[in-house]
């Protein structure tokens, strides 16, 4: 490439190792740089800010040497800098000096050489900027700019460089996807908007959606660490270096929200959104951005992304496993209650059969008693409905289903659960009493799951009392309001109680003192109660027996 050769020649000729060289294309900036009048060059006017911006935006980079990349703190590769406007790469303090120099060259002859002093630039002091036009007449719009100076021996600057190295190391080794972003161009655009009296950026971007696009196109990703490369499915770092819109491609609207946050001078911006990776995956990530405040370098906005996809998938899977587990536990409880359930269904079936036989007897008489038959068939229907309801309840309890939250009366939940264990408790001579609290506020929960909690507690209590004398087997349930936000259910038995050492462990899965017990009943209770925002605790009553206390938040008033 001939331009490379030119640059090499230039460096070699000057023999100044730390000279930074720029090769610029000013073809787009003629109109802005050339003076219309031919008055004294010394009387060139001061730059107006907008003229300066427009002029430098029209000057494009053709090439730079490595020294320039280092000196100007440019990020990205040499070829990626090509064709970029010099306006977004040149430091603020010396932009007008550069513009002056380019304007002088544009208005001078082909052999003109212009020199300007710009003082400090990075680690250099006494920096002199020299510019001249390409010697080759075929390239009239190519301008070379060389910067030379002496290295500031101040240890502070060396320290700064070292800290910048450390900073780069930190970014590259941080185990989180990180993008470094240069948003200076957008910041300048925002300054102009503010100068024009625009303060409500949300309204402005609604009316001018193109502003967001423009702002994004001029904001550049200048560095990316390996984690970011992996997150975005890029082949290497360079694929991510460049304009920022790819970051927002997965979530329409996110670019606008970030633009608004930047404009408003918010320090930190956080958004959960989705990214579309370069290899076409959608990922759930949290975006965390820290915007610079005035006085800080605007070229280093850090964008951190935390990938939640794996976590969300794991959570979904865990929920599924939990549901399966709950179902297995429900089925095992139902299995333990088979006799009770069979009894519960047989009761109405028995009534149906007897009523049907009685009806036939009435009908078989010489003068059939039809009013009796009608009464009996009505009772048959009622019992059949009852049998059907019981079967429905059992199916509900056994079915694999997603939890459904509805407003429930805790007393009703307890009463329905009691039906499952009523005959089991009669078989085992366990006296069960429910003292329902009055005017309990409704709770929001899954009926079947909460019934399961009650059934498990009752089955647990009955099993705890298997060594208790039959006359003394008792379960007392009490529901009550517990403060303004909770309702509670206590289940007390007259068994031996829980050994104090085990009180903390009874809710652990697979903790059981029963022979043949799975030890998951109470673990299930805890998991269900917790998922309802409540608590379950175990204690021993001072007069003997275990007491389990469940609290559930009341439903917020809809």
């Amino acid at each position: 490439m001939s331009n490379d050769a030119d640059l090499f020649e230039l460096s070699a000729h000057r023999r100044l190792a730390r000279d930074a060289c720029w090769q610029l294309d000013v073809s787009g900036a003629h109109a802005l740089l050339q003076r219309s009048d031919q008055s004294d060059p010394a009387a060139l006017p001061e730059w107006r800010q907008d003229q300066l911006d427009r002029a430098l935006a029209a000057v494009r980079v053709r090439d730079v040497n490595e020294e320039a990349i280092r000196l100007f703190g440019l990020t990205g590769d040499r070829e990626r800098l090509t064709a970029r406007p010099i306006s977004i790469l040149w430091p603020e303090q010396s932009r007008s000096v550069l513009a002056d120099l380019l304007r002088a060259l544009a208005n001078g002859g082909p052999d003109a050489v212009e020199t300007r002093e710009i003082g400090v630039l990075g680690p250099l002091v006494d920096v002199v900027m020299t510019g001249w036009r390409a010697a080759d007449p075929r390239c009239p719009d190519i301008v070379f700019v060389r910067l030379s100076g002496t290295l500031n021996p101040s240890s502070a600057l060396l320290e700064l460089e070292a800290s910048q190295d450390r900073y780069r190391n930190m970014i590259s080794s941080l185990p989180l996807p990180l993008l470094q972003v240069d948003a200076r161009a957008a910041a300048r655009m925002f300054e102009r908007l503010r100068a024009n009296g625009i303060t409500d950026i949300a309204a402005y971007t609604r009316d001018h959606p193109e502003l967001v696009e423009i702002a994004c196109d001029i904001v550049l990703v200048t560095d990316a660490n390996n984690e970011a490369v992996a997150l975005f499915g890029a082949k290497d770092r360079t694929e991510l270096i460049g304009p920022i819109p790819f970051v927002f491609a997965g979530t329409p609207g996110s670019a606008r929200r970030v633009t608004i946050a930047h404009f408003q001078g918010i320090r930190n911006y956080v958004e959960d959104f989705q990214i579309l990776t370069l290899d076409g995956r959608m990922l759930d990530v949290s975006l965390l951005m820290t915007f610079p405040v005035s006085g800080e370098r605007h070229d280093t906005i850090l964008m951190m992304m935390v990938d939640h996809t794996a976590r969300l998938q794991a959570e979904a899977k865990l929920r599924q496993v939990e549901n399966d587990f709950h179902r297995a536990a429900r089925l095992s409880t139902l299995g333990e209650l088979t006799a009770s359930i069979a009894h519960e269904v047989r009761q109405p079936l028995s009534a149906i059969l007897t009523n049907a036989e009685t009806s036939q007897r009435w009908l078989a008489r010489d003068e059939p008693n039809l009013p009796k038959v009608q009464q009996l068939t009505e009772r048959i229907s009622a019992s059949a409905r009852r049998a059907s309801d019981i079967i429905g309840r059992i199916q509900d309890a056994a079915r694999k289903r997603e939890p459904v939250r509805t407003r429930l009366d805790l007393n009703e939940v307890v009463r329905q659960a009691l039906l499952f264990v009523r005959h089991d408790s009669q078989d085992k001579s366990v006296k069960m009493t429910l003292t329902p609290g009055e005017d309990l506020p409704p709770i929001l929960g899954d009926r079947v799951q909460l019934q399961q909690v009650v059934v498990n507690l009752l089955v647990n209590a009955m099993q705890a009392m298997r060594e208790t004398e039959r006359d003394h087997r008792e379960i007392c349930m009490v529901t009550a309001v517990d403060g303004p936000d909770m309702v509670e259910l206590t289940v007390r038995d007259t068994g031996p109680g829980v050994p104090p050492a085990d009180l903390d462990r009874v809710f652990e899965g697979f903790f059981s003192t029963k022979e043949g017990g799975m030890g998951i009943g109470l673990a299930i209770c805890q998991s269900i109660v917790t998922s309802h925002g409540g608590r379950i605790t175990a204690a021993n009553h001072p007069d003997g027996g275990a007491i389990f206390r469940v609290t559930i938040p009341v439903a917020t008033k809809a």
Partner: protein
Amino acid sequence: MSPAPLFAIVDDDEALRQALAELLEVSGFDCMTFADADAFLADYAPGRFSGLVTDLNLPGMNGQQLQQHIRLVDPRLPVIVISAQSDPAIRARALASGALAYLTKPINDQVLFRHLDAALSRFPPPTAD
């Protein structure tokens, strides 16, 4: 003339209790129904009932306890136990305690009547003196 035989039915399930009462009625038996053992015992007087049909699973005093109690206070009163359970051990225990029969639900009406007839023939209602 002796009074019409009166049977007592004790079952906590209202539908079944009513159904049994209707069944006895269509066959010309008089009966009274009770929801639990205590209600029955409150109405009980020696010689008042010709037989007791009781469910085994009752709240409070269960059918077996009731049967044992009756055996002490009125050994001549025939007891027919009905239950949804067909557990042979429970059945054997009920019969060993002197139950006339152990019937599982759903109740076969003909079997029930056979036992009610047997109760009446083995233990005829007391004559009014």
